[in-house]
Structures are given as C-alpha cells and as structure tokens.
C-alpha cells in the first residue's frame, strides 16, 4: 500500500471519513442556525438542546412506541419542530423589538432548562441506540461502515435540498425577501409572522434531524448538544452568519480540516476550528460567505 508523509492510508482515510461525518453534523446544524438567524435575527442558543431532543425523540419513539429508526427520522424532527414553533409563538416573539442579545439569552436559558430536564430523567451517562444499517463495505484502502456513509449522504442531500429551496424556489424568494425587509413583504400580503414561526420550526427541525442521525452513531445523552454546539457556532462565524451556502460548505470543509489535523498534528485537532475562526474574524469579519449587514 502507498503511504503519504509516513501516514498509513487506513488512518488517513479513516480520519477523513470521521471528519466528513462531523462535517455532516456541523453542516446540518449551522444550516438551521443560518436559516433562523437570517429571518428572525435570533442567535438560537437552544440549537444544541434541540439536536439532543431529536436524538432523544428517536430513542423514545423506539423504546416507548416501538417506532424504528426510519420512522423516527421523520417523526422526531416533526415533533421537535412543533415544540420549537410553540417556543417561538409564546416566548421568542416577545423579543423581536429588542436587541439580538435578548434572544440569545432566552434561548441559552432554554437550552439549560431542557438539558437539565433530560439529565434529571435519563441521567448523564448516555443511552445506546442500535445501528439501523449494520455492516459495511471494504473499499480496499479502508473499511466503510454503511451507517456512516448514510449519515454523510443524508446530510448532503438534505443540505442541497434546503439550499435549492431557499435559493431557487418561489417560497425561498419570500424567505430571502423577508430576511431583507419583513415589513414590506408583509405589506405585499404575506403573513410574515406565520412565516417566522414556520421558519423557526424548520431550523429547529433540521437540528432534530441531525440529532436522529447522531443517535446510532453516538450515545444519546443530555449533553450531546452542548458538546457540539460551541464548534457549530465557530463554523457559523467562519461561514458568515445567515449565509446558507456558507453554512453548508464550511460545515463539511471544517469537518474535513479537523479530521486531517487529527492525522497530521493531533495536538491541534480540538482547537484548529477556533484558530481558523480567529483568523477569519481578523481578515473577513463578516465570514467567508457573509456580507456585512
């Protein structure tokens, strides 16, 4: 077998795949954050908790209702999205006339409450969730587990569908226009408050979908969201707050960068994203794909 800079290919491709999987979650989560921030101007700090709720939704569906993974993949995001919409209607809506900071504080508080409730009920150690796609394929240079491949493909497909919907459809043109001038869009006869509720639900649903995808790959635990969300916020800052394409490209890209760092300089693997964030903030404060507002 060939070697690259003294690294065996199994290790390289193994880390590359792990990087892609992490990237798949970064992309889905930062995409939801971008959609929400674009229209609501709310930095949704509850995103990690909503991702965790998605994973728990899948676990509960299986253990309480006997709904298998594939059913939970639809059911859990839907239910978490509905909970999100209730939060928007009852809480977030009251804060739109205030500074961004209030929305951030509210969602941060919600994240703590939601995590606390799940920790009280289910403990902090994590619950197992069976792999719905066991087995894998030997590609020669590496072994590719089926479910891991599924995560990457599913995330890519969902991200591209969302991008298409926002950038290329009539519905997306309403969303883009309302992101710029919600008052004027409403004066054209569109029910913008309802659109805001649905958009928040959609972004939250994306987080929950990522959570369901994560359930078989990681353990289902109350803290799974808070571990991930800090990195995701760094991804969003690098990509550019509110940029749809930026969220997708930087999500996958930084996952891969992180994976490669693990191969070539493991000591930096947990900080590399934050180093990149610092550099991007210095050179292009609005992010790689962002435009200054």
């Amino acid at each position: 077998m060939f070697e690259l800079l003294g690294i065996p290919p199994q290790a390289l491709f193994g880390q590359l795949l792990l990087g892609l999987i992490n990237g798949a979650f970064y992309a889905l989560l930062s995409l939801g954050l971008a959609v929400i921030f674009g229209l609501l101007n709310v930095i949704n700090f509850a995103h990690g908790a909503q991702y965790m709720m998605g994973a728990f939704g899948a676990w509960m569906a299986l253990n309480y209702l006997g709904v298998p993974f594939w059913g939970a993949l639809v059911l859990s995001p839907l239910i978490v999205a509905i909970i999100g919409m209730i939060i928007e209607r009852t809480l977030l809506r009251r804060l739109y006339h205030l500074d961004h900071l209030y929305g951030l504080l509210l969602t941060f508080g919600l994240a703590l409450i939601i995590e606390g409730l799940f920790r009280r009920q289910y403990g902090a150690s994590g619950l197992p969730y069976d792999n719905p796609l066991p087995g894998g394929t030997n590609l020669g240079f590496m072994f590719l587990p089926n479910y891991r491949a599924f995560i990457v493909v599913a995330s890519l497909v969902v991200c591209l569908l969302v991008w298409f919907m926002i950038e290329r459809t009539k519905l997306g043109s309403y969303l883009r226009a309302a992101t710029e001038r919600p008052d004027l869009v409403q004066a054209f006869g569109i029910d913008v408050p309802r659109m805001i509720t649905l958009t928040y639900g959609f972004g939250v649903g994306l987080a929950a979908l990522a959570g369901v995808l994560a359930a078989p790959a990681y353990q289902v635990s109350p803290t799974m969201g808070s571990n991930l969300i800090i990195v995701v916020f760094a991804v969003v800052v690098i990509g550019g707050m509110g940029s749809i394409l930026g969220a997708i490209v930087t999500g996958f890209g930084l996952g891969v960068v992180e994976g490669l760092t693990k191969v070539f300089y493991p000591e930096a693997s947990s900080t590399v994203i934050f180093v990149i964030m610092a550099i991007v903030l210095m050179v292009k404060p609005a992010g790689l794909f962002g435009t200054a507002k």
Partner: protein
Amino acid sequence: MLDRTSAPLLEVKNLHGHYGESHVLHGMSFDVYPGEVVTLLGRNGAGKTTTMRAIMGLLRKRSGSIRYEGTETVGLQPNKIARLGIAICPEERGIFSSLSVRENLLLPPVVLPGGLTVDEIHELFPRLEERRNSQGTKLSGGEQQMLAIARILRTGAKLLLLDEPSEGLAPVIVQHIGEIIKTLKQRGFTVLLVEQNFHFASTIADRHYVVEHGRVVDMVENDKIAENAARLEALLGV
C-alpha cells in the same frame, strides 16, 4: 370618467399617527374616489409618507378611521390590508438585493383577480424583461423605480400608493413615469401619489391635497390649479 357620485374608494377621517413618542399625523382627512389620481403635496416632514405607511398598516400606532371600500382598516395587519386590494410602492423603492429582477417582479402574491399579466407588464416596461436575470439592486435608479411600480400591478390591487416615484430621477425618466401613471389610470387603477414635485403632479393628477404639519390644509382640483398657483406656492414654498 371620474365617478365621484359613488362612495369613495378610500376614506381617511381624523387620522392620527405616532412614531414612538412623536405625534406625526394630527387628524388627516381626505377621500379618494375610484379611478382618480390624487396627490398629497407638501413640504418635507409634513407627514405624507407617514400617511401612506398608516394606510398600508406599516405605521402601527395609528388611530382615527381609514376605510377602504367601506372596510375599516385601522387595527388590521399590513398583510390583511394588502389582501383588500391596496399596494404600496415605497419611497426607498424597496427592491430586494437577494432577488433577481424577475423574482422581485413576481414576489407580491396575487390578492385579487384583474391584475396585469407579466406580458402586459413587460409591454409597459420592456427594460425589466431585458434585465430579468440581473440582481434587483443592480438596476439603475430609474429601472428600480419601474420595477417597484411594476411588481404591484400584477397583484390585482386597485388602489396604488406611490410614494415620490419621481424622486432623484432624470427629467426624461420622470416624464416616462408620468406616462405610465396616466396609462394606469386609463386601465382603471386608482392612484394615491405623494409628491414634492408639484409640476410633475399637475401633469397627471385629478386633485391635490395639501398637507402641512400632519393634516390636510387645502384641496385643489387640477383644472383650477392655475388660479390657485399663488396660494399653492405659498403653502409648498416652491
């Protein structure tokens, strides 16, 4: 021609409006009849744009009465008011930069039957068809103004609120917009126009309301404009 024997299309009575703490409209009252082109004339800061925003529901703090086809709209959300058949072309034009020209044109939903088709709109504004794939804000000022007017013609709205469509445009383009407004009138649209350009207004309007300090202080029929010229000039400071 004009039918002022029937009920007014728009009836504004004792309209008050606030921006935060400041009281901007102090009892505006005026009517617009179906098929008319009516202007609100007045100096900067007289409350003309605020009146438009109040009619559209964009000014939340408003009281008094605004009736459209007999329906009271004070208290309705802007999207509900739009669905009654009122559409606005705002002063700053409000072209969306993240939308193409075509997306901008097709953005406002059709609220009532009887609007212009896209083909009819392209006949009136051929430039918009040529530039349909450009980013909305890449258009020239005149083209953006055309687009801002064009996109509200599709919706079936009968009352068009045009806020200073001549502002900042070259004379030849202002003249073109004047022609467009005359065409719209022939097609049966009713237009409420805010203008500071009195001479432009006098070429297209049926009547003029003079606004000062948030209330209507005078009304002049366009065909009596010559005999009132001195008084209007004093009021408008032109």
